């Protein structure tokens, strides 16, 4: 009889074909390998140096041109051509410029299924764990090795049980819950570990909300962040793929390293202050801070529900962007963009003066899109606010929910969204 297992232990055991538990090192079969324009040029170089000729299974690899979209320099255009050429030669699917952020598009296209093991050369690949699977970020050399062999070695992580208790108060965003979670864990509190989500509060969370929590988990170092499969998972997959994957439940009596209980009723709007995503304060402590730029986008806050919520807050507050405020809107994917064009959200935001940019990573890491000016203060829906993250070391970056960002766009200052709802 084998010991009771966490979801991480079960998925990695299954992919390695052995009975593994936390602490074991296993070589796993990978269901999907994801490369981006930021990581794949190096990965292609490693691939060749490793003696790679053909990828092990072209059906299990995708590339996304998301960090430099569209390319703003000849060099980034050359990176794109290199990745396009490699994808074509290898018969690998490519999400070209404008399709969107890799770990947003992979779930949208039904390529992330319960029970899967996904490795991506992008730290926010963990986002896919919202769909009851093990997804983890790696560098370019591990990506190349996984392309060649179809495999990756992993240490089976210990698991922290994150229990979501209580109910979401009206107006509270998953971003607030996520910021509260990573503040509680600290900047390395989940390093080398998996998070596994539990609790009645789960029923409150849509898949979009779960993507936000899984996404932010890596800011505490998490190797994976895994949700259970339930009706919300089913309904997300419906229409995206005919497969339902292999849903994985944790065993009764599974060994967790520790438990973190998040009482949803007690969480209030939060802001991460410069220069770390885990330096989180209740929004009251930052209210009144003058802002220059608002960024609505990224794999944390660039989904349809986020941008609709932002629009609603703006419309309830005069329907105008405050004078002098630059509002940058970057849908996480083309699917999101098209939905928001169809329902009029994009038109209304643009009419207010929003700068709508190409779906992708956008201004998040200073690689494409709007770069803040010297000394500017930015309020963003993104996940990282390290100094110089957006391409200017003198800018100060605050992180908050889409509602809080919209409230600040309307007023020109960091504003508690509860006071303008």
């Amino acid at each position, binding site marked *: 009889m084998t010991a009771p297992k966490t979801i991480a232990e079960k998925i990695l055991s299954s992919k390695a074909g052995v009975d593994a538990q936390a602490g074991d*090192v296993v*070589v796993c079969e990978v269901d999907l390998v994801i490369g981006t324009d*930021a*990581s794949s*040029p*190096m990965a292609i*170089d*490693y691939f060749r*140096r*490793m*003696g790679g000729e053909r990828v092990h299974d072209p059906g299990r690899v995708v590339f996304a041109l998301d*960090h*430099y979209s569209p390319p703003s*320099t000849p*060099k*980034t255009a050359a990176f794109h051509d290199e990745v396009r050429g490699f994808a074509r030669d290898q018969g690998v699917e490519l999400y070209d410029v404008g399709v969107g952020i890799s770990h947003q598009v992979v779930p949208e296209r039904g390529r992330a299924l319960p029970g899967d093991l996904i490795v991506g*050369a*992008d*730290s926010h690949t963990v986002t896919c764990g919202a769909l009851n699977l093990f997804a983890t*970020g*790696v*560098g*370019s*050399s*591990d990506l190349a*090795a996984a392309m*060649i*062999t179809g*495999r990756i*070695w992993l*240490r089976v992580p210990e698991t922290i049980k994150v229990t979501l208790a209580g109910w979401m108060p009206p107006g509270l965003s998953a971003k607030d819950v996520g910021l509260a979670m990573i503040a509680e864990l600290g*900047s*390395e509190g989940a*390093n*080398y570990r998996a998070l596994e989500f539990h609790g009645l509060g789960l029923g409150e969370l849509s898949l979009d909300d779960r993507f936000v929590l899984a996404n932010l988990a890596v800011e505490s*170092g998490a*190797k994976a962040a895994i949700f259970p499969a339930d009706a919300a998972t089913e309904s997300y997959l419906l229409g995206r793929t005919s497969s339902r994957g292999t849903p994985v439940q944790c065993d009764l009596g599974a060994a967790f390293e520790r438990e973190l209980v998040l009482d949803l009723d007690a969480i209030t709007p939060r802001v991460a202050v410069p220069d*770390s995503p885990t330096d989180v304060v209740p929004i009251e402590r930052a209210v009144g801070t003058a802002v220059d730029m608002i960024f609505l986008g990224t794999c944390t806050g660039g989904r349809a529900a986020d941008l609709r919520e932002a629009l609603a807050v703006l419309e309830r507050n005069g329907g105008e962007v405050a004078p002098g405020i630059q509002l940058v809107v970057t849908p996480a994917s083309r699917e999101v963009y098209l939905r928001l064009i169809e329902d009029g959200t994009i038109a209304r935001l643009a009419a207010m003066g929003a700068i709508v940019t190409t779906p992708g990573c956008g201004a998040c*890491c*200073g*690689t494409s899109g709007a770069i803040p000016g010297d000394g500017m203060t930015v309020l963003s829906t993104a996940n*990282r606010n*390290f*100094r*110089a*993250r957006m*391409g200017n*070391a003198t800018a100060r970056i605050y992180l908050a929910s889409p509602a809080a960002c919209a409230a600040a766009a309307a007023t020109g200052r960091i504003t508690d969204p509860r006071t303008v709802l």
Partner: protein
Amino acid sequence: MPARLEGRARVVGDNVNTDYIISSTRKRETLDEQILKRYLLETLDPGFAASVRDGDLLVGGANFGCGSAMEIAATVILASGIRAVLAQSFSRTFFRNAVNNGLMPIECDTSGIIEGDRLAITIDARGVLMDNRTRGVMVEGEPLRHMMAEILDAGGLVEYLRRGAWRRA
């Protein structure tokens, strides 16, 4: 594989993320480490890169290499002539990237190390030992385990894979 490194400590703080090691804006222009090394750690200290000497040892606090998984952060450190990074703890993605490129990540108590200290690191069958010659203090480090040790022994993941690891029969 027994190894011995001796060099000057170059001390940085806690939570040095990979964007601080080399900014995403820089690597958008080139992936040539010989160029990028001019910008090593520029966000924390614009003068740092110019002051690095071959054989220096980078000393971090907790959670070194957090944030983005970009591998260029590890290879730019190597290109600068730094062959080992010592830290209280490492982010998992940086740790893997370091080992995969033959940059030695040494997890040990770095709290007593001061900028410019002379450090000697010995790695052998008995383990990892950091001798702070300036302070006269010896600290044991965490030995590399499992496949990490094999990959670093091979000189990195390229060589390791060229030897046929994980291939199918």
